[in-house]
């Protein structure tokens, strides 16, 4: 067996997909530029072929994992004979090579979907070219630098592999990376529509509508990916929290912030034809930041539990980032005069101004986060000592900005487009403002030292009040107009008739619930390190914890040390249940992991992580980290509400397209 590539269909499909995508990029460009329809169609076919070939590559890699084909170095490094089949599948993206391939395949799949659904004759050739540039760039990096079809450099065929990183052997890891990558790569479509509009000169409202639809899809996946990532960190890393402002977490957060800003500012362009240059810039920045996130994770310039740096991938990605940034700047400069908006802001007391403020705050958070991530790199590059920026910086800077953002979520729905009167505003705002103020006063009365918590909870109630008020008013008017609809029916009608607005409010509701959970679990968190001995209970936050037993268990690919901890109510002594925190040792990788156990209620989570057996106590006692996280449950509930709202937005966006298509078909038939 020689070092190099084996004649394997997956390897061939990867190279073929790359070549075909390169052709699609060049052919699409010349087809669009010279207006040659044959060439443009040939490039389109190449893009679709690249999609099919790259998907085949991924399937081929999955087959290699499932067959334990250790001739291939990537399979040997990331799996072993004892892993269950579902982790063999997640092992595909468990390392650098496979994760880069997944990026390329998803880019390619999104490209195929976008092209197949694009009906614009003017935009499609440019769209083909830009999408193929993105796909080709990533597939080229995979082919030349991180090829997962490389052979093991040995003459002896290994009989077992190294196994997957134990931290990744968690059910969340089956879905979280997929959602995250679907989010990241999905932003290529809005970017491509944006560039296609700039290059073709077709700056009508069409591109912005299409970009908005696909941004919603990508944003939805990214949101789910980030929340699942937080859940994974919560149950797997054992430090009691879910968000540590880790560089790689921040890398996923940066494009989320700019995409959120875009989804708001795009409404202003649709309604008032304003912020056109701003929207083009935001759309491009979002995609640039997704690639930047990939660069951060894979270049090794920052340290993180999630990062994996090998080879020269960083240089490739940096080159691509420079290319797409230059392309954006040049095309915006080229179309600058056509992009300038004919409309201007009539009043700062208007909904468009509220959207603008929202964008400025989101970009402020984005810049602060970017600065925090890159500060160690900048300080080292300038010759200073490499200093790490920790969570206190992010919390202090971003915390108040998030509160301003949430306040805008309450203020925005109460005002109208163009201009407003204070009298009208006062009539609508007083009830939620009174409710919010009452909550603030109540919290200050309970604990006067926690002013930030009191103000935050007051603000959340204010926003909740304005959103509920919006639903209530719209449903009441609907009932008046329809004469005969019930309360619930009119509420559903309101959402169905204007899903892009009320879907957005549902997302905002989710954000408020999440903010309640984050604030409470951060400010009121209780944590303590215990050494629990058999039969000797300890108390914390109203719970009594007693170690009942320590059991060692042997599984196929790991050995577990499992503690049984009985939980009682400290006051009544009533048994509330048992928790089973574990430590697992994976012999293949010689790594130990912590598997926490929680008792989750809507009020608080009791969270226990096993630190290990105390050597002095031998098997009669163990060290534990115990946390009480108030209202943690609402973080996940908020995430689910956000997902529900996003689904309303996405379905409505694509259904409208379908309605338009159907009506076009109908009118064509009538005409014929």
């Amino acid at each position, binding site marked *: 067996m020689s070092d190099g590539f084996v004649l394997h269909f997956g390897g061939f499909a990867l190279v073929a997909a790359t070549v075909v995508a390169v052709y699609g990029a060049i052919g699409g460009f010349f087809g669009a530029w010279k207006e040659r329809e044959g*060439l443009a169609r040939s490039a389109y076919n190449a893009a*679709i*072929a690249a999609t099919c070939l790259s998907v085949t590559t991924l399937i081929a890699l999955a087959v290699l994992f499932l067959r334990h084909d250790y001739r291939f170095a990537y399979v040997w490094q990331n799996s072993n004979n004892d892993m269950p089949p579902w982790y063999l599948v997640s092992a595909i993206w468990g390392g650098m090579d496979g994760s880069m391939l997944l990026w390329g395949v998803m880019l390619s799949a999104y490209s195929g979907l976008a092209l197949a659904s694009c009906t614009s004759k003017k935009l499609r050739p440019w769209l083909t070219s830009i999408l193929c540039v993105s796909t080709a760039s990533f597939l080229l990096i995979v082919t030349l630098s991180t090829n997962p079809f490389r052979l093991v450099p040995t003459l002896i065929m290994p009989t077992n592999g190294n196994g997957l990183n134990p931290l990744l052997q968690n059910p969340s890891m089956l879905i979280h990376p997929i959602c995250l990558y679907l989010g990241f790569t999905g932003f290529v479509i809005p970017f491509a529509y944006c560039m296609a509009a700039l290059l073709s000169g077709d700056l009508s409202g069409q591109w912005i*509508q299409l970009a908005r639809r696909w941004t919603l899809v990508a944003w939805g996946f990214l949101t789910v990916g980030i929340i699942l990532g937080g859940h994974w960190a919560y149950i797997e890393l054992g430090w009691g929290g879910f968000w540590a402002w880790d560089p790689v977490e921040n890398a996923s957060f940066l494009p989320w912030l700019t995409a959120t800003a875009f989804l708001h500012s795009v409404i202003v362009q649709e309604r008032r034809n304003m912020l056109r240059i701003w929207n083009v810039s935001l759309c491009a920045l979002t995609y640039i930041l997704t690639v930047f996130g990939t660069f951060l994770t894979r270049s090794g310039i920052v340290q993180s539990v999630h990062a994996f740096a090998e080879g020269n991938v960083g240089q490739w990605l940096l080159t691509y980032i420079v290319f797409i940034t230059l392309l954006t700047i040049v095309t915006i400069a080229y179309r600058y005069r056509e992009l300038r908006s004919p409309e201007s802001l009539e009043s700062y007391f208007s909904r468009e101004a509220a959207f603008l403020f929202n964008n400025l705050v989101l970009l402020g958070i984005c810049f602060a986060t970017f600065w925090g991530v890159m500060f160690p790199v900048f300080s080292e590059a300038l010759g200073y000592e490499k200093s790490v920026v920790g969570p206190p910086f992010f919390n202090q800077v971003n915390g108040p900005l998030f509160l301003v953002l949430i306040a805008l979520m309450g203020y925005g729905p109460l005002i109208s487009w163009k201009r*407003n009167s204070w009298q009208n505003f006062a009539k*609508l705002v007083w009830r939620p403002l009174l409710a919010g103020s009452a909550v603030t006063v109540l919290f200050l009365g309970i604990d006067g030292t926690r002013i930030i918590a009191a103000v935050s909870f007051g603000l959340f109630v204010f926003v909740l009040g304005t959103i509920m008020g919006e639903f209530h008013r719209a449903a009441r*008017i609907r009932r008046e107009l329809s004469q005969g609809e019930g309360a619930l029916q009119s509420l559903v009608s309101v959402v169905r008739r204007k899903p892009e607005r009320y879907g957005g409010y549902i997302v905002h509701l989710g954000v408020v619930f999440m903010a309640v959970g984050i604030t409470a679990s951060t400010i009121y968190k209780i944590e303590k390190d215990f050494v629990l001995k058999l039969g000797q209970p300890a108390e914390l936050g109203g719970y009594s914890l007693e170690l009942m037993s320590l059991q060692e268990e042997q599984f196929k690919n790991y050995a577990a040390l499992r503690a049984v901890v009985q939980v009682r109510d400290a006051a009544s002594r009533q048994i509330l249940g048992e928790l089973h925190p574990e430590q697992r040792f994976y012999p293949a990788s010689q790594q130990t992991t912590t598997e926490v156990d929680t008792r989750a209620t809507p009020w608080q989570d009791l969270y226990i992580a096993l630190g290990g057996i105390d050597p002095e106590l031998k098997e009669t006692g163990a060290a534990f980290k115990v946390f009480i996280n108030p209202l943690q449950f609402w973080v996940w509930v908020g995430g689910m509400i956000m997902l529900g709202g996003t689904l309303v937005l996405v379905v409505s966006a694509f259904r*409208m397209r379908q309605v*338009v298509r159907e009506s*076009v078909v109908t009118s064509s038939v009538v005409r014929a």
Partner: protein
Amino acid sequence: MDIGTLINIALTVLTSLVVSWAIISPLLELPAGEVALTSAEEVSVRQDQRREIFAELEELEIEFRSGKLDSEDYQQSRDELFQKAAAVIAEGDNETTPHRREA
């Protein structure tokens, strides 16, 4: 040569042929004539515009009844939207009339 290698070679050759044909065939076709000006795409854009104007009118009505707008601002915005709607409908009529005549 084992059966697996043979299947690999066969799949590789077959895929190469299909992909090559898909890419080359559009280049060999004769250039098509002028594309009809009123394409489905343009109709679709206009229908989008109409739908948006009607949605804006409905939203305006709700905002006025909610008490967010003065009657003066409401009347002015409503007139503007009616004018926009009239313009879009007129534009659509101008472009579909020749087709009706042809039919």
